[in-house]
């Protein structure tokens, strides 16, 4: 029987099938961070058990770290305590640890691929739902809870029923000013925030084939926002080119052997999916969200839908718009904005900074905008400097911060104040996500940049056209 990419990778990692139960599923790579791992280590201690394969787990501090003055002691004692716990737990169990200030430190889903830890055909988990990012390399990667972190530490396995399979095809050429983020927000707006729940998604078609690895990471990253456990893209020459020669990538004969396997990782002709959707690239324009979940997205030139035109409960819809202080039928273009956030595991890579700079170069940050520009890792910072993007940002009135998850979830001091409106390149616009009472519009780095210079929600195409 013909197999899908997902079947090939999943089936090769099943240690045992339990009748009327989950599969015992082997994990090749495990990432941990300071927020969702401490209780797992407490669990190990209370059971008196150790870490089975310390070399398969990688620790980095990111969720709860300051993005300013990282060389100073962390001011918040609770945050400092979590960072210390991560360092101590890693040291005690012989786990690699890239703490604050380490040159490899950064957002877990950015440093994994950067260092060649993320490989095609592997299984990757982390106590973070955006672990789906690594699917861009043809890996099965998904978020887990802390009980499962403890399972992986102690036995390198978790217990999971095999998800159903969905394929999403997007064919054609993307229009001017349309980015991978827009493709993802468009798909999620069609699927809604729960449409892919219970499924693992494979993305296929011209648009993903043409996309860079960084763009593929942005798309796979957002799979969870339509409820999918994860999303993946078959590896190709671009994938192999990206990973070759990185720190943890197989070398020499091991590389050749791995390549033989990786080249078998594609969905065979005739393989079947439980659900399949096809979209046309020409229908996608720069996107923006207007509500309190990532499925509430529209083209930036559109107006907010009327309650009678949306699926789902009217009360929930009205609650959402009430929180956002928006009205049905409002235009998004021209809405005054207070904050702009460029960063996160969704859009904190070098291409995102290049895109942002392509708009702001030779312009000035609008006076009403507070901008937080947070690279995803120290390597991204280095690249920004190497390309001189830091100078372009500085000349336009922007300041570059230090790496971390930052205002995406606002666990650190980067909190958008109550009532303020932010355009964010991150992944969630839930109530209070960027700080209690904060209001978030999700968008691409191009929309964020256009908004940052105009001070109001702006279609980046109107600026790009005048360049």
């Amino acid at each position, binding site marked *: 029987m013909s197999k899908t990419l997902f079947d090939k990778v999943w089936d090769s990692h099943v*240690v*045992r099938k*339990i*009748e*009327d*139960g*989950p599969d*015992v599923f*082997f994990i*090749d790579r495990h990432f941990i961070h300071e*927020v*969702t791992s*401490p*209780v797992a280590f*407490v*669990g190990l201690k209370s*059971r008196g*058990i150790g870490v*089975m394969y310390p070399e398969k787990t990688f620790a980095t501090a990111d969720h*709860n770290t300051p993005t300013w003055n990282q060389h100073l002691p962390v001011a918040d004692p609770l*945050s400092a*305590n*979590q960072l210390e*716990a991560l360092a101590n737990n890693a040291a005690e169990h012989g786990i690699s640890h890239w703490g604050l200030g380490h040159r490899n430190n950064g957002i877990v889903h950015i440093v994994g691929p950067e260092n060649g830890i993320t*490989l095609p055909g*592997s299984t990757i988990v982390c*106590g*973070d*739902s955006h672990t789906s990012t690594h699917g861009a390399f043809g890996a099965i990667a998904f978020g*887990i*809870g802390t*009980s499962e972190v403890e*399972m992986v530490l*102690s*036995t*390198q*396995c978790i*217990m*999971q029923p095999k998800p159903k399979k969905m394929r999403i095809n997007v064919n054609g050429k993307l229009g001017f000013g349309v980015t991978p983020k827009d493709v993802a927000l468009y798909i999620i707006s069609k699927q809604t*925030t*729960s449409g892919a*729940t219970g499924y693992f998604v494979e993305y296929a078609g011209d648009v993903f084939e043409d996309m860079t690895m960084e763009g593929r990471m942005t798309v796979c990253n957002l799979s969870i926002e339509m*409820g999918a*456990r994860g999303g993946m893209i078959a590896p190709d020459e671009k994938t192999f080119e990206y990973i070759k020669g990185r720190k943890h990538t*197989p070398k020499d004969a*091991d590389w050749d052997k*791995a390549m033989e*396997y990786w080249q078998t990782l594609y969905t065979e002709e005739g393989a079947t999916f439980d659900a399949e959707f096809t979209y046309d690239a020409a229908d996608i324009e720069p996107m923006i969200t207007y509500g309190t979940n990532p499925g509430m997205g529209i083209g930036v030139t559109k107006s907010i839908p009327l309650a009678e035109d949306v699926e*789902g*409960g009217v009360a*929930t819809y009205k*609650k959402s718009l009430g929180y956002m202080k928006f009205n049905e039928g409002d235009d998004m273009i021209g809405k005054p904005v207070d904050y702009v956030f460029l960063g996160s595991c969704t859009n904190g890579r070098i291409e995102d900074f290049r895109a942002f700079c392509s708009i702001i170069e030779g312009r000035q940050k609008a006076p009403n905008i507070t901008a937080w520009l947070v690279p995803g890792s120290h390597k991204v910072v280095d690249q920004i400097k190497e390309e001189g993007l830091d100078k372009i940002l500085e000349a336009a009135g922007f300041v570059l911060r230090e790496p971390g998850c930052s205002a995406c*979830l*606002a*666990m650190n001091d980067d909190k958008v104040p109550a009532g303020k409106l932010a355009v964010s390149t991150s992944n969630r616009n*839930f*109530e*209070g*996500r960027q700080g*209690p009472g904060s209001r978030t519009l999700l968008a691409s780095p191009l929309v964020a940049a256009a908004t940052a210079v105009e001070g109001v929600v702006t279609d980046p195409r109107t600026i790009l056209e005048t360049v």
Partner: protein
Amino acid sequence: MAYDKFEVLTSTAYPLPIENVDTDQIIPARFLKATERKGFGDNFFRDWRYDSEGNPIPDFPLNDAKYAGSKILVGGKNFGSGSSREHAAWSVYDFGLRCVISSFFADIFRNNCLNIGVLPVQVSAAFAQKLFDAIEADPKTEIKVDLPNQTVTLVSTGESEPFDINGYKKGNMLNGFDDIDYLQNMKEEIAAFGETRPF
């Protein structure tokens, strides 16, 4: 972490008929800074239970005295979406709940609940509405969740619906076991499998 066995639970319920409740609402990120599993019940639905000055919002169901002491929450469709934080499931348990009923659950939240002894019960949209209506008509409405027989029943009328759970997880819940107990017993098999992995 072991938890109390779950067999049959009969209780009143907190109604929360809002759709797409995400785990950032169940427990906001700023309360995830602990390094031990305790105290999460206090911040369960923090920003819906309290205003910005920290005063309880009286008409929010979790603060409403007429539902106090319930061990069940009936939530709207797509309950628990978003972040994988297990703290959300811990806050459900620590608040004193053992069961969440909804017409649809997000995957990771459902898994996390099952791993810590909170039973997620998925019912039809029509039955969920029936539960909401009954609770609205009488806040003392009791719901019986029978795990051995996999049924959920509106006690006042006897109306009942079956629910799904796989046999393995059901066994765990009935006995208070967790997955780590199971995995610890197959470490040799795992080690042999690990030998075959290329990287």
